[in-house]
């Protein structure tokens, strides 16, 4: 039972690392929760506590204009003891969330959908990492650990996205739809993952069953299920807060970007500089830009829906309005599933260097701007550009590698030859 021993070791070590960090550095969670790279206005634990306080005192949590997160988080966290006095409970919760996410990632890896989907057999399918290694890559990723220690609520969205992918790659339609609707309810943009994941779920179901189910009926029933689940969650929120105003404070904030707190994304700087009369227009352009990838990638990568979904999470980490390192952590943990593409990637060194460069210099430049006062906003924005560039290089390069991989299957005689795009 070597695998089980490995598993236990990995998970035990991950839990130990997290709890150790929580207990030996009691000020670390608050420090990280205040960092703009980790906590955005829509995921911050401090804002969650503010909303929780208002909620417990029977005031609408959205009254203060501080809390922008989903209403159903409030009853969940109000069950826990007050984190400022007894942080242990919430620490355990976040550790558990990370472990469950890793478990879901293992399920994805075990399903083999990354290398051998129904319509496509990669010629390099033997080149893969074990599920334990993939889970370890998630659990010991410093970005994941930082998100967990900062207790950012994006950890929850990450978990539900991973569960949705896992369930889709197992062909479990109902749980997939439910997990995805929770993820969308928490942070809205995961709804764009629905088309590729639906295809993934369909492919798995079709390969398991003797005859493929009717595609249109499958699509309609799952879409209706997603709508119903989302509607149910929104209705529960309505019952909880007593009015629909939470829509304005949660999804309205994500759509309209009223809070321009700096983050690692590209939006905040752009909208600080924006002429007021063009603000709405460019909000529309930016959102459409994010959304337009979903259909295009799904169609182009029809044979590898899991890869399309993973690439979309990478695009979310770059182009959504309030990205944090948690989004990058999700993408970078899904990437090891595609170990077989790594030999085909051409700019791995450049991308890795850019990511490392941004991770170390980002906090330094932020310090120069905000605390030392010797820099300005351009310092931090430049470093977020490098960060986004690094991620875009990975996204583009892996996409190239996936297409090359498809091409190699199509024309095996050209394997290993130089190619160019025409």
């Amino acid at each position, binding site marked *: 039972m070597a695998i089980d021993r490995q598993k236990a070791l990995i998970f035990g070590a991950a839990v130990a690392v997290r709890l150790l960090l929580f207990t030996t550095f009691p000020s670390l969670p608050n420090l990280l929760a205040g960092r703009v790279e980790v906590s955005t206005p829509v995921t911050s634990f401090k804002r969650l506590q503010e909303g929780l306080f208002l909620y417990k005192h029977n005031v609408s949590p959205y009254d203060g204009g501080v809390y922008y997160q989903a209403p159903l988080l409030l009853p969940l966290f109000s069950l826990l003891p007050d984190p400022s006095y007894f942080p242990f409970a919430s620490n355990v919760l976040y550790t558990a969330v990370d472990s469950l996410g890793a478990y879901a990632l293992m399920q994805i890896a075990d399903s083999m959908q990354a290398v051998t989907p129904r319509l496509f057999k990669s010629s390099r399918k033997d080149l893969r990492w074990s599920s334990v290694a993939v889970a370890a890559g998630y659990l010991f990723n410093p970005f994941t650990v930082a998100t967990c220690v900062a207790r950012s609520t994006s950890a929850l969205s990450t978990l539900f996205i991973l569960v949705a992918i896992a369930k889709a790659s197992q062909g479990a339609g109902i749980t997939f739809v439910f997990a995805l609707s929770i993820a969308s309810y928490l942070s809205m943009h995961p709804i764009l993952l629905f088309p590729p994941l639906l295809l993934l779920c369909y492919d798995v179901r079709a390969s398991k069953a003797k005859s493929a189910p009717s595609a249109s009926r499958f699509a309609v029933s799952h879409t209706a299920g997603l709508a119903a689940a989302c509607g149910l969650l929104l209705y529960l929120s309505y019952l909880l807060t007593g009015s629909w105003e939470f829509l304005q404070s949660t999804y309205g904030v994500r759509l309209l970007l009223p809070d321009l707190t700096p983050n690692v994304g590209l939006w905040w700087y752009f909208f600080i500089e924006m002429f007021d009369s063009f603000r709405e*227009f460019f909000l529309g352009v930016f959102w459409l830009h994010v959304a337009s990838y979903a259909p295009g990638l799904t169609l182009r990568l029809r044979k590898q829906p899991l890869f399309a979904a993973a690439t979309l999470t990478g695009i979310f980490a770059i182009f959504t309005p309030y990205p944090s390192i948690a989004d990058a952590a999700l993408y970078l943990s899904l990437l090891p599933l595609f170990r077989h593409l790594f030999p085909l990637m051409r700019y791995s060194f450049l991308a890795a260097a850019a990511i490392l460069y941004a991770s170390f210099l980002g906090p330094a430049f932020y310090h120069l701007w905000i605390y030392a006062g010797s820099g300005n906003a351009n310092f931090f924005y430049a470093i977020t550009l490098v960060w986004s560039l690094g991620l875009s290089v990975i996204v583009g390069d892996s*996409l190239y590698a996936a297409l090359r991989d498809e091409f190699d299957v199509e024309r095996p005689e050209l394997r290993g030859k130089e190619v160019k795009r025409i």
Partner: protein
Amino acid sequence: MAETDGATASVEPLSTPSTDATSVSATAKPPPETQESIWLRRSVIVSFWLVVVLLGLPVWWKTTAIYRAELPLETMGAWAESKVCQPAFPLKVAVEAPIPAQDAQHLLRDTQHSLDELNDFSAHRLSLLLADAPFVANASQQIVTDGIAVDVSHDEDIALSVRLVPVETGHTPRSLLQPYSPRLDVYYGPSQLPTAASTGSPLATYIAEELHKLFGEEQALLAHLLSKTPGPRAPVAKRLSSGIIAELEHRSTRALKYAPTYHLTFSLFTPINIPSDWDIESALQRYMSPFLDSLTGIHNFTIDTQVQLYSGYTPTVRPEFDEQSKSWTLRKEDLSGFINAAEWPLTPSIGAGPTVNFVLYVPDRSQSPLVVKETGGNSWLVPQWGGVVILNPTEADEAAPAIMTREALAPAMHTFSTQLMSLLGLPQSPGCLPLRISTLVRVRAASLLFSASSTLGALARLYNALPSIPIPDKVAKSVDLTTEHLQLACDSLKEGRFHSALEHARVAEAEAEKAFFERSMVGQVYFPDEHKVAVYLPLLGPVAVPLIMAALKELQTTIRNFKARRSS
């Protein structure tokens, strides 16, 4: 960008070497694409284009459309050209006569007739009414009140009441205008009453002439005001001599712009340390308040005062000592620079309304008396700003009082109130304050009416001239309110209810200004269309190029294939 990879990537071999088993010839020619990959690429391109066309275009249309509320341009233009409202000023004059009603009616008719003959300004008409004569009510004669008789004491729209008093002695007819109530006493001899048979009695003519004289200046003011507004008013306006016009212009440049509230600032400046205090509060109470109270219907006032020691006038002003009159004299040119704007803390404006400054300057004893050279006077008015009074210490009080008493301030206060009258635009005649104030009400109502109308016209022109500025609903609402109140003000004017006319005109003016100076309208005035290229291109250019190129390439191949198929 990942997008270009996703949208158009199709991987093809580089020039294949001849050793390659599959290459048919040495020339590098990519093998034909499979039908599947062609369709895949097309569907990807179409999916991007669908997002752009189905979602992008509506977003662009919706978010960059300029909202322009509908404005009643026709009505606004009509107001600006004074087509809607022909302002009229029908003044009511009540006549109290201690004579039988029949005779009184007769006298009234005669007087009215001669008045109308004298009047050459049809918009401004005096109409006589017969009033109860309370002071003879207990006389033996029975007064028969008919429909025309009104109760004078309860109607503030009565401009003036004329009281006929029979006297036996003295030169008759003669008249006396009460200075502090709107009443004209006319003394007449018994023989001057018109008889039933005669037409045109000397008394009637006399009263008509007196009344015409009393309202002469008001007519000039209103006529001047009317002549400055556009529109078909030429026949209404009466002709004014150029001298009068120049005088009225001069006066209107001195007066402050109308505001519902003025701040009055009374300041005491002295170059030395005495007087260190003044009894300003009781002086204002005594000399200023009665006048200010009588203006309550037109303006509100707030007052503040200050004492500034060791604050001399502008150092460049040097008075000369005049041996003849033994006094220090200021030349007329110096007066404009007298106020030490650099050092005297005279705030330009407190709060919403304009500030009127009154400066009392007490010169040093070594430089007193200080007077104006040309006139020997000691006060002057600064147009649209306030007034200055130099109060020379009298020789009598050698002890140099540290505190100025109320009595010592009296002359200065009288000067200040005269200056305030000019600054408010109060007419200079007749010698009856209530009459002058009611004239001011009419003049102000008319001028506010005209200025609100012309603001409406300006807004309408702006609306047409700048099609790129947004017009929010607020502006349309303000415009509606303005026209509504303008109509009410105009109706009130025609009915002779001047106080309510002023009230409505004031609202109309405020709303018109609010609409014209709406902040959100001017945001894009200085944003020409060329700048939009600079806004759109940097972001949309890079995104659009691969989209358009891909679409064009696809179209090209489709057309080529189509042609090839037709030719074969």
